[in-house]
């Protein structure tokens, strides 16, 4: 039985607590975590804060679907995904993806798969408050390319 959890929340999350919860399964062996943070610079502009909009209802469904796909594709014991919405300051954590597995290869792959899928499929939109202006973040082609390598042959 694989533990799977998704959360979309305005509150700050505690990486240490989420890591500990994944690691507490004694057959885990390998725990891989990814945390994305608000950067202080983007495309040469100083960033002061970030606002994250999402599509309540669809967001949770897509994240749960991505977790199911990861569990089907990789040999993993636990998968925990948290994504924040609302206003975030520079350096705050935006997203956490944690995977526990008996095998480090599966843990790494599942974590990267979930991030690539989330980046291209989960309905979140970022708006950056810079020193000069406010702008919606553009989709990156590199994210579309990253997700393509997971396409089933």
């Amino acid at each position, binding site marked *: 039985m694989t533990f799977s959890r998704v959360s979309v929340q305005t509150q700050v999350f505690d990486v240490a607590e989420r890591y500990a919860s994944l690691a507490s399964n004694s057959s885990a062996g390998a725990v891989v975590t990814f945390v*994305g943070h608000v950067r202080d610079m983007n495309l040469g502009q100083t960033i002061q804060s970030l606002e*994250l*909009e*999402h*599509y309540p*209802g*669809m967001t949770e*469904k*897509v994240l749960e679907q991505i977790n199911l796909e990861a569990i089907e594709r990789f040999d993993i014991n636990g998968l925990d995904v948290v*994504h924040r919405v609302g206003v975030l300051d520079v350096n705050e954590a*935006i*997203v956490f993806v944690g995977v526990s597995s008996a095998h480090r290869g599966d843990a790494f792959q599942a974590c990267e798969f979930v*991030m690539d899928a*989330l*980046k*291209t*499929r*989960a*309905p*979140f*939109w*970022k*708006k950056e408050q810079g020193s000069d202006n406010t702008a*919606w*973040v*553009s*989709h*990156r082609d590199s*994210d579309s390319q990253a997700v393509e390598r997971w396409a089933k042959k």
Partner: protein
Amino acid sequence: MIQILFFARLREQLGQSKVQLSSDALETPTSIQTVLDYLQHQNPSWRDALSSPDLCFAIDQEQAQVTDLISQNCEVAIFPPVTGG
């Protein structure tokens, strides 16, 4: 009735987050493309925003193509490419 939701850049461009089309406004089943055409016809100032080539769609909270069909009581969402994570 079809409920249409707009998000992010598109929501700001249109100045609203949703519109509702009554069942006599559009015959169903109809495609997302027909809805886009209908909205642009009703609101000529929305033309540019709604003809942006990068728009993405969902029907009942599932990713959809512009050619996919909508029936009554569907929730349709139109939005720019996602940028989370």
